[in-house]
């Protein structure tokens, strides 16, 4: 009955949404920020640890829907090893993909399961929430909102 929904609820999203692999606060970190989706209550807290000018590790604590949690979990993997500016550039490409459904850059490989969100405009902000929080963390701001 929900077969049509597999476009959004890709099995990766369902699984990552339920059991994120990177969903832990880091004990040691040098940047962090909270992201809020005020209209619906999704929250994510992102922690970043750098090494040699690159993101060595990203962990998070999230309360929210499968889409936002999966987005955070995949983000953690996708930005690992990137410089801050590379991570932010990837966030921009990701945002484009969530809006158009398209994105065949190599860099988006890990994130591609999220592309189906494009068919659900009101869910795009769920997918973007962790990225907005990451940008705030890297900019040294404490909180951000995806509304």
């Amino acid at each position, binding site marked *: 009955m929900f077969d049509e929904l597999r476009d959004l*609820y890709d099995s990766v999203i369902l699984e990552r949404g339920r059991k994120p692999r990177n969903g832990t606060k880091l004990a040691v970190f040098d940047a962090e920020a909270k992201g809020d989706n005020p209209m*619906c209550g999704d929250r994510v807290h992102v922690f970043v640890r750098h090494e040699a000018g690159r993101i060595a590790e990203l962990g998070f604590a999230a309360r929210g829907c*499968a889409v936002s949690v999966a987005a955070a979990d995949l983000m953690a993997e996708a930005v690992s090893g990137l410089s801050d500016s590379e991570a932010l550039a990837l966030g921009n490409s990701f945002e484009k993909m969530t809006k158009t459904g398209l994105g065949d850059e190599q860099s988006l490989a890990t994130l591609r399961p999220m592309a189906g969100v494009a068919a659900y405009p009101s869910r795009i902000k*769920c997918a973007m929430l962790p990225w907005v929080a990451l940008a705030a963390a890297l900019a040294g701001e404490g909180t951000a909102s995806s509304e």
Partner: protein
Amino acid sequence: MNAMSKSVASRTFDIEAIRADFPILAEKIRGKDLVFLDSGASAQKPVVVMEAMLHAMQHQYANVHRGLHWMSERTTEAYEAARDAAARLMNASDRREIVITHSSTEAFNLVAHSFGRGVLKPGQAVVVSQMEHHANIVPWQMLRDAHGIELRVAPITDAGELDMDGLETLLADGKVGLVSITHMSNVLGTYTPVERIVKLAHAYGAKVMLDGSQAIVHRRVDVQALDVDFYAWTGHKLYGPTGIGILYTKRELQEAMPPFMGGGDMISSVSFEHSSWAEAPHKFEAGTPPILEGIGLRAAIEYVEAIGYDAIAAHESQLTEHALARLSDIEGLTIVGRAQDRGGVISFTMDGAHAHDVATLLDRQGIAVRAGFHCAEPLIRRLGLDSTSRASFGVYTTMGEIDVLADTLERVRGFFG
């Protein structure tokens, strides 16, 4: 003009005839029949409302109140008939007690500015409850921060009912100037015991404002019997257009209340040194009013009156009982709030599935529900939750739609389970 469709004029509750009055219900969503269970956010509009607005734009329109010409006189009559209709619907004793606003939200801001800054004194307090819509919280916070009015919060029970003892405790020191509480929660469906609230508050010298945005859709409201001081509701939830709201204000309170907004129509005389105000209700209605919206709202009120609150309430309680029974049977589903006296607004959570995901899956099947805070963040937090899904009913909701909801929720559980 504004003639009611024949199907409504005098009937017992005929759900098929009612549904035929709402053309949007025939729409398909992603190929599925629309099952619209989001009337608590905004209701659909019957043909009579569309016709009334269309008729005005096609045949009889001009600005109101100031015109000496035919179109303006006729439009003024048609617009002012909304005030009469609202007065009749709420059983106000005087049409001048009806202030026409643009929404419930404006009504709360109006009272917070005018009564709040103009009548309440710093050091006095306003009481709201834990289960208020943001429209009945934020204006009082702004009043508190700007004017030194204390804001007190009456507790609710875990069942989602107002804690009357808790309310009385807050009133005890006699400092409370206004109690502003919902008549029906837009999250839990709880009806509050408004007669008792008004009596209690008055006994302690406090005025009472009720948020009827949800209640008046489902239940007869009698402001005289209630002896309430302010009663606010919003047109778009009562099957009327957006952009119009009603604020009942007790006649004896109007004189002491200064205007909220300034502009045309609310003045008696203007010079740069000094302006004097028109009589209420015009004092509170600045600028060109919602003319087309008033004309539409009057048609909506007449539509509701023709069906009758007895029939509406009976239908709603049938739906609600059935929905509570069906949803309670779903494993892992928790109904939020279990008030004794409750109506057709039902919030729930589902183990392992976030409210957003539930809403998206339901939407895929054409079922429209809301998910999130429902503009009542403090209530959701009070209940220890992050969000809920909410189904809410209108006159056009059917038992069959409740079944579609319940069946689909079973499958949603399977999807995430």
